[in-house]
C-alpha cells in the first residue's frame, strides 16, 4: 500500500523533472527529419545494373502483401525474360510494411525514404508501373537475377549463369 503510494509519488516526481528537458518534436515542414535509406516509404521498382527491368513478375510481393494492394500480370519478352505487363500498387491501401521488399527474390521492389504522398483524390494514389519504375538500382547495386538464375535468356545461354557448368552433351559417352 505504502509502496504503491511512493511509486505513484515517484512517478509524479519523474514527470515533473521533465519540465526541464528539451522537446523531441521535429517541427516537420520547416525542419526535415533524417530518414535512413532503409526507411519504409514510397515503393519503387528498380532496374538491374545492366539497365534491364528487375521485376520478373513472380507475384511474390502480391501474395506477401497483407492488404493485397499489389496486382500484376506476368508476360514474357522476346528475349525470354519474364516481366510485368502491368504492375499496380494501390497506395491508398498500402501500409508501408515492407513485406513486398522482403519477399522480392530479385531486389526489384524497394521501399524508399519518401513518405510525402498526399493527394486530394484517392485515385491518384493508384500507381501503375510507369509511376513505380525508376532508372537506377535503388539500395542494392550489384544484384542481377538473370546472372544467377538458370533460365536462359537472350545473351545468356544455358550454363552461363553463376556456378553453372556448360550444358551436357547428351550424346557424349564420357563419364
Amino acid at each position: 500500500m505504502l509502496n504503491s503510494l511512493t511509486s505513484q509519488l515517484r512517478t509524479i516526481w519523474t514527470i515533473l523533472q521533465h519540465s526541464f528537458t528539451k522537446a523531441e518534436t521535429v517541427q516537420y515542414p520547416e525542419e526535415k527529419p533524417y530518414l535512413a535509406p532503409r526507411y519504409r516509404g514510397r515503393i519503387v521498382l528498380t532496374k538491374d545494373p545492366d539497365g534491364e527491368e528487375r521485376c520478373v513478375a513472380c507475384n511474390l510481393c502480391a501474395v506477401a502483401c497483407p492488404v493485397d494492394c499489389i496486382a500484376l500480370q506476368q508476360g514474357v519478352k522476346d528475349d525470354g525474360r519474364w516481366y510485368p505487363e502491368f504492375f499496380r500498387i494501390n497506395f491508398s491501401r498500402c501500409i508501408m510494411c515492407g513485406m513486398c521488399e522482403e519477399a522480392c527474390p530479385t531486389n526489384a521492389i524497394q521501399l524508399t525514404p519518401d513518405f510525402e504522398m498526399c493527394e486530394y483524390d484517392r485515385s491518384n494514389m493508384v500507381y501503375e508501373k510507369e509511376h513505380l519504375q525508376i532508372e537506377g538500382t535503388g539500395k542494392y547495386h550489384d544484384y542481377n537475377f538473370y546472372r544467377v538464375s538458370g533460365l536462359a535468356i537472350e545473351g545468356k545461354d544455358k550454363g552461363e549463369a553463376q556456378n553453372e557448368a556448360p550444358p551436357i552433351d547428351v550424346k557424349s559417352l564420357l563419364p
Partner: protein
Amino acid sequence: MSELDTIGFGLVIIAAAVGGAAFLTWFERRLLGVWQDRYGPNRLGPFGVLQVLADMIKLLTKHDWVPPFADRAVFIFAPTAIVVAMLLGFAVVPFGPELYILDLNIGLLFFLGMTSLAVYSVLLGGLASNNKYALLGGLRSAAQMVSYEVFMGLSLMGVVMLTGSFSLRAIVEAQRDLWFCIPQFLGLFTFLIAGIAESHRLPFDLPEAEHELTAGFHTEYGGMKFAMFMLGEYLGLLLISCMIATLFFGGWLGPWLPPVVWFGLKVFILICFFILLRAAIPRPRYDQLMALGWKVMLPLTLLNLLLTGAIALLMEGA
C-alpha cells in the same frame, strides 16, 4: 454590496470562469507537452494560444446533430446541467476578503450539493445516448461519483470542526495562523483524490475511458454539446482548485501581495498539479477505483475525522 453589484460581479465571475476554462484547454495541452517532451499546440498565435479560438470556431460551427435513436430532450439537457451546476458552485467561493457573490453560512454544503448535481449530467447523457458505450460510461460515473461523494463530504468535516463553521469566509479567516493543509493533511489528501474523481479527470476518467468505452458517456456527442461537457469538466477542475485553495491553503491569505493575486496564484499552482497528475499517473482499473474509494479512502477519512475530533477535544480541554 448591492444586488446589482452582486449580479454584476456574478457575471464577471461567470465570464472569468468560462474564459478560464477555455484557456485551460490550451494551457493543459501545452503543459502536458512540456512534461511529455513535446510542444503541444504551438502554431496559432503567440505560443499557440489562439488554438482556443480555433477550437471554439470548430466546435461552434460543427453540425449540431442528435442521433435519431437518442432521447432527444434529455440528450440536449444533459450537457447544460453540468455547466450550470459547476457555475453555481462558484457562487460561494471567496476570491478575496470582500470578493464573493454569496457568503452563505452553509457555503461548504452548497458547494458539495452543486458538485453532486453534476452526476446527473453524466448519467443522463449516457442514458439518453442509447448507446452501449455511453450507457456503460454513465453507469460507471454514477457509481464512481456516489462512492467518492461519501468521503468527499466527510474529508471536509475536519476543516469544519477546526473552524466551527460551514461558511467559507470563516474557514479562510480561521487559517490566519496555520493553513489547514498542515493539521488536516489527511483531509487534504482524501479531498484531493475525491475532487479528481468528482470532476472525472485523469487518472479517474473511467466514465469516458477511451480505450475501453470509445468516449464513454459522451460517445454520441459532438459540436456544441460536446463542448459543454468539456467546459463542465474544466469548470470542475477550476472549482475544485478554488475549493482546495480556500479550504486548505488559506484562500486569499498571504503577505505583501493583494489577496486576489494570492488566491489566483494558489489556484494556478493547484491546476498545474492536477495537470501533472494527468501527465504522470495511469488510469486504474474500474474495480481498483471502487476498491480504493471504499477500502482505503473512506477509512482514512474516518480516521482523520476521529483524530481531528480527539485533538480538538483535547485542545479545548487544555
